[in-house]
């Protein structure tokens, strides 16, 4: 499906209570890095969340511990969902220690995803930093599925070290395609790494695209997105064609709890994907 994706409120009304998670069973677990795990989950019973669009997120719930917002990295018609979780607090620690057969809760999907359809007819550059790759994974497949609708496709993936790259084997398979150009770079590496070394922004000048006709999807830590967006704009990509995915503390995910405010926006409801043009002034202010 590649319908136009209007920036209208996402239909987040799930069945029943908006805060009640739906049980899902963990199907498989992949250890991506020492602290990052990919979970494939499927509905436990009849209930499932509505299908999501690339860039949306869900609240992932560990029974008795709590819930955290996690981007949707993939899904299928059977209701299976893919989530990549880094252990950083008690909830994510519980989630990364799950094994097949365990139960999690999910509510969502929430927010606005990447406006992939807006990029049709032009070139696309996808820039991921570290764990910014999972929320962009479905964008890549959306581009692959409708490859003829887009011009050149450039994928840039940066991480701190080679050990921090997720979906490594899968990404190597993208490299074999002749209709996509992939650059993978790390901030620093040992001798075992024969790839590029340099911060992700250093790869932008090498990207091949027609800047005024390019749409950029950038996801990673905020500082990485800000520097990348600046590098893209310096190359002539329009700020209004540059999209970033913001991260803030989210508790309710539906704009009721106030935690995720970023200036005038509720990141959960108005984002998490935003147009860089709209956010650029606030990204320059400290502690917004």
């Amino acid at each position, binding site marked *: 499906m590649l319908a136009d994706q209007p920036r209208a409120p996402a239909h987040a*009304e799930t069945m029943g*209570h908006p805060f009640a998670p739906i049980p899902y069973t963990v199907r498989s677990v992949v250890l991506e890095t020492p602290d990052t795990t990919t979970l494939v989950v499927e509905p436990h019973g009849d209930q499932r969340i509505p299908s999501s669009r690339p860039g949306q997120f869900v609240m992932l719930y560990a029974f*008795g511990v*709590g819930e955290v917002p996690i981007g949707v990295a993939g899904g299928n018609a059977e209701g299976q969902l893919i989530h990549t979780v880094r252990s950083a607090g008690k909830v994510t620690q519980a989630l990364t220690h799950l094994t097949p057969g365990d139960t999690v809760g999910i509510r969502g999907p929430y927010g606005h995803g990447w406006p992939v359809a807006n990029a049709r007819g032009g070139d696309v550059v996808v820039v991921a930093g570290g764990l910014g790759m999972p929320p962009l994974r479905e964008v890549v497949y959306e581009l692959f599925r409708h490859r003829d609708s887009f011009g050149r496709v450039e994928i840039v993936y940066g991480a701190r070290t080679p050990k921090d790259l997720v979906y490594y084997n899968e990404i190597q398979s993208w490299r074999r395609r002749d209709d996509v150009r992939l650059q993978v770079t790390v901030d620093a590496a040992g001798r075992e790494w024969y790839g590029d070394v340099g911060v992700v922004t250093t790869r932008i000048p090498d990207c091949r695209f027609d800047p005024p006709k390019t749409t950029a999807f950038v996801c990673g830590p905020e500082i990485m997105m800000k520097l990348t967006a600046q590098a893209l704009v310096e190359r002539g990509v329009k700020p209004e064609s540059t999209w970033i995915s913001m991260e803030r503390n989210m*508790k309710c995910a539906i*704009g009721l*709890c106030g935690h995720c405010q970023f200036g005038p926006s509720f990141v959960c409801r108005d984002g998490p994907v935003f147009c860089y043009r709209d956010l650029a002034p606030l990204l320059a*202010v400290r*502690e*917004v």
Partner: protein
Amino acid sequence: MGEVRVGGQYVLDRARFPEFLSALSACGYDVVGPTVRDSAIVYDRIEKLDDLPVGWTDRQDGGKYRLERRSDEALFGYNVGPFSWKRFLFPPRERLWTAEKVEGSFVVRPEPTGGPRLAFLGVRACELAALDMTDKVFQGGPVADPGYRARRARILKVAVQCGQAGGTCFCVSMGTGPGVRSGADLVLTEILSPGPHRFLLEVGTPLGAEVVARLAPPLSSAAKDEEGLARGIVERTAGSMGRRMDTGGIRDLLRTNLEHPRWEIVAARCLSCTNCTMVCPTCFCSSQEEVPSLDAQAVERWRRWDSCYNLAFTELHGTSVRKSGLSRYRQWMTHKLGTWHDQFGTSGCVGCGRCITWCPVGIDLTEEVAAIRASPGTITTKGGSR
């Protein structure tokens, strides 16, 4: 019994006020209204007339709140206290759901919504505006809060037009009061003199009419006299506001002054105590917490009020986005007065003055706005460039 119509104006004698309370009960409402507790006027269950703050008033200023005796027996001769009505629609602590483990999975049971029908007695004009704002927050977006919506649907609002302005009041600046324009089921104006102690009672909705119709013998219609007196009372109150705020272009003023040096000055005073957010009738921030049973077989999910002044409020990956007190005060004020417009189409401030009164160091947002307005955009470097 004469027909009670919406828009009708009646006279309710002070002596018949207990009957009015009974009529509210007879219509199926539990009455919640002002009462004196812990040296303050708070909102709680009202069973009888004596529960009301008869003959009490409140004296307020930055960081100051004192109850004082009045020289009369006014029932509503005060302004606003530390409570606001939001606590009855959006409780400080609320269970959202419970869940228990069942055969390798879990079952979630949402908390039943509903509860008693409540009559809010003594809702000020600014508080009616605040209820409109929380309505927009909790039930105006794509997803409504089920608890708020269920409780909100069971509320009768009995407003009281203010007969005096408090020391920290500025509803006139915010365009919310002191006169009640709409949104109330019934509107009272307390007339202490001349003439006997009585109330002008205006019927705003059919629900309100139902209450008035219960009174027997029927209330007499108001004369021009009472209407004029009520108008005079509201005008006098409007003319004696304790504070004022110039709201012209305030959203852009704040948006373009996020790095104004004034923030540092106010941040040096702010204790991040969260008082202003707790007393504010529109602050809506909350957190959710998971409360597991001892055997970990069941959990309860609770929601409780939270505040943007708490360090953990913006916790992200083990640190906080807003670490400094400056950034937290700025978030509160710019949200309340500025970005609220972007989010909900109105200001988030009703001019009730609670945040000024209950700030332990007397920080006054009207003063802060004036200071920024006096020297906007004063970010410069020593080199002189902007």
